[in-house]
């Protein structure tokens, strides 16, 4: 179980605070008209993010009362129907898929932490040169600076660190990591924000204040653009780590006597403070000082990682103690990443431990071996869009599908009144009644709008290969890799469906009768996690 409540909130916040807070948020703000985006962002936080946070904590704790720390079990505890457990397959496929490619991206941050402190990229003072360095590291550049084995080695090392943490359990591994990693992340981010905001004017006279002004200048005309609202809703979705099965897995280790209403809000607000105050005060203001507003917009539009891995290293080289600042930037990204990736392993571990009785260390290192093999495809075939496919189907569209299913089960099938009561059991605060209506009608409608819009504008064209999942046209030579990437996702889904069926048969579960509820977590359940 969780050793302390602060540890639980830090672990939950660590799960939510990820690479997206520092890389995706500033990019989305810049690409969606800054001030307009921020208005839509706060509306989405209130109507979508915070309600979903409470719903996911509620689903998780409800499942935990039946000894279920994984999504198929949680869904089956909400809906006594044979289909419920199979719907839960998305709560196993998504975390496994995202864990695989997220750990790979996380390994870039570990590598760049090392390159910063050793001045590995020093002397590459233009964005073109740094882009070449990044592509060389990724193995997608014809002119290689790095040996072929380097990205594989950093991926293996990062994955081993992740698996080591989860193999130590909830309180002994994940909570301990959060108690160390989150304060380090806060300190590194705060120091970097102060350094950036006190930078002298750049070559063209731009200041960090110009960057903040771009983000925060309210532009009501921009709010008539639907894409701004969707981008803001999407960012809220990703930043809070909802729709992945991780928050539920962590919350399943709580009893009915524990508060989830205040803890859920504390988690969401911690993530928002890190994103809005710290995430918005580093990359964009720094880029504006050195390259102006138009330059920062161009960089943000040129690629998901260019702001963080290309522009920032160029800037650090212009600053005193740049190596140390680079170390802190990539170090904070690494801690943001690892506190999220360990959470992704948790629901998968819970499934195998609870349903098949496999020892914690065995299942953790077994999962590590599977992720390593799957990750090799991403490392080797990055340039062919293999990762982009998983990022879209599992890490983007899949999250919304997951949330829609979960909201329907918890709010509409389990019942709005039951859900509201469940969230308030042991609560330290009373949630305003308005949120009962928001959770019941506004949040599901919001989710269905996002699903419908993305389905029509993105998912269909990507599915038909009219556009690439990573943007742009599909190159003919990339088609076999895209097909292989999708085939692997389908195979994973079928494999997990078979395992769910096997688990239910093996344990003689009766779908219509449901599971036995326990007042306190059972000894077997505690054995699984501690």
């Amino acid at each position: 179980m969780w050793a302390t409540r602060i540890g639980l909130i830090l672990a939950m916040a660590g799960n939510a605070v990820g690479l997206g807070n520092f890389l995706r948020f500033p990019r989305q703000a810049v690409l969606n008209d800054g001030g307009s985006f921020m208005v839509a962002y706060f509306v989405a936080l209130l109507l979508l993010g915070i309600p979903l946070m409470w719903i996911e904590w509620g689903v998780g704790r409800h499942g935990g009362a039946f000894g279920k720390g994984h999504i198929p079990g949680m869904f089956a505890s909400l809906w006594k129907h044979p289909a419920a457990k199979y719907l839960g397959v998305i709560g196993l496929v998504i975390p496994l898929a995202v864990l695989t490619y997220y750990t790979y991206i996380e390994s870039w941050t570990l590598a760049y932490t090392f390159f910063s402190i050793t001045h590995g990229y020093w002397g590459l003072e233009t964005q073109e040169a740094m882009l070449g360095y990044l592509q060389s590291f990724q193995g997608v550049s014809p002119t290689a600076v790095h040996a072929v084995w380097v990205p594989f080695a950093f991926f293996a090392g990062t994955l081993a660190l992740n698996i080591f943490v989860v193999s130590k359990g909830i309180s002994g591994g994940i909570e301990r990591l959060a108690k160390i990693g989150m304060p380090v992340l806060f300190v590194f981010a705060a120091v970097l924000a102060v350094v950036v905001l006190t930078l002298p004017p750049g070559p063209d006279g731009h200041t960090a204040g110009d960057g903040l002004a771009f983000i925060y200048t309210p532009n009501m005309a921009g709010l008539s653009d639907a894409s701004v609202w969707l981008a803001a809703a999407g960012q809220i979705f990703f930043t809070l780590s909802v729709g992945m099965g991780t928050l539920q897995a962590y919350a399943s280790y709580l009893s009915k006597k524990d508060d989830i209403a205040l803890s859920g809000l504390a988690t969401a607000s911690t993530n928002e403070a890190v994103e809005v105050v710290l995430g918005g005060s580093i990359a964009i203001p720094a880029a504006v000082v050195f390259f102006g507003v138009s330059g920062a917009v161009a960089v943000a539009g040129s690629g998901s990682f260019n702001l963080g891995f290309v522009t920032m290293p160029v800037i650090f080289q212009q600053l005193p103690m740049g190596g140390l600042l680079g170390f802190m930037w990539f170090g904070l990204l690494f801690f943001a990443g690892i506190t999220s990736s360990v959470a992704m392993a948790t629901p998968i571990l819970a499934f195998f431990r609870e349903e098949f009785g496999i020892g914690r260390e065995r299942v953790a290192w077994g999962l590590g071996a599977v992720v390593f093999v799957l990750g090799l495809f991403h490392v080797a075939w990055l340039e062919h869009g293999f990762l982009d496919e998983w990022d879209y189907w599992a890490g983007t569209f899949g999250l919304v599908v997951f949330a829609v299913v979960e909201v329907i089960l918890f709010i509409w099938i389990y019942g709005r009144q039951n859900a509201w009561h469940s969230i308030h059991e042991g609560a330290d605060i009373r949630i305003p009644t308005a949120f009962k209506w928001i959770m019941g009608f506004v949040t599901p409608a919001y989710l269905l709008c996002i699903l419908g819009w993305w389905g029509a504008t993105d998912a269909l064209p990507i599915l038909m290969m009219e556009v690439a999942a990573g943007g742009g046209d599909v190159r003919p030579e990339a088609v076999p890799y895209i097909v292989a990437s999708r085939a692997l996702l389908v195979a994973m889904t079928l494999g997990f469906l078979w395992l769910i069926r096997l688990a239910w048969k093996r344990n003689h579960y009766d779908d219509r009768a449901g599971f036995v509820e326990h007042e306190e977590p059972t000894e077997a359940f505690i054995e699984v996690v501690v």
Partner: protein
Amino acid sequence: MTTAAALFMAASWTFVLGLVVWCFRRVLKSESARVKH
């Protein structure tokens, strides 16, 4: 930075930081109450 941008930024930061402070004060308060019981 325009006055409107400065005000919007101040409101945004106050909202998120205020919420964090309020939440953690309530958490610490309820934890100390639980310890006393």
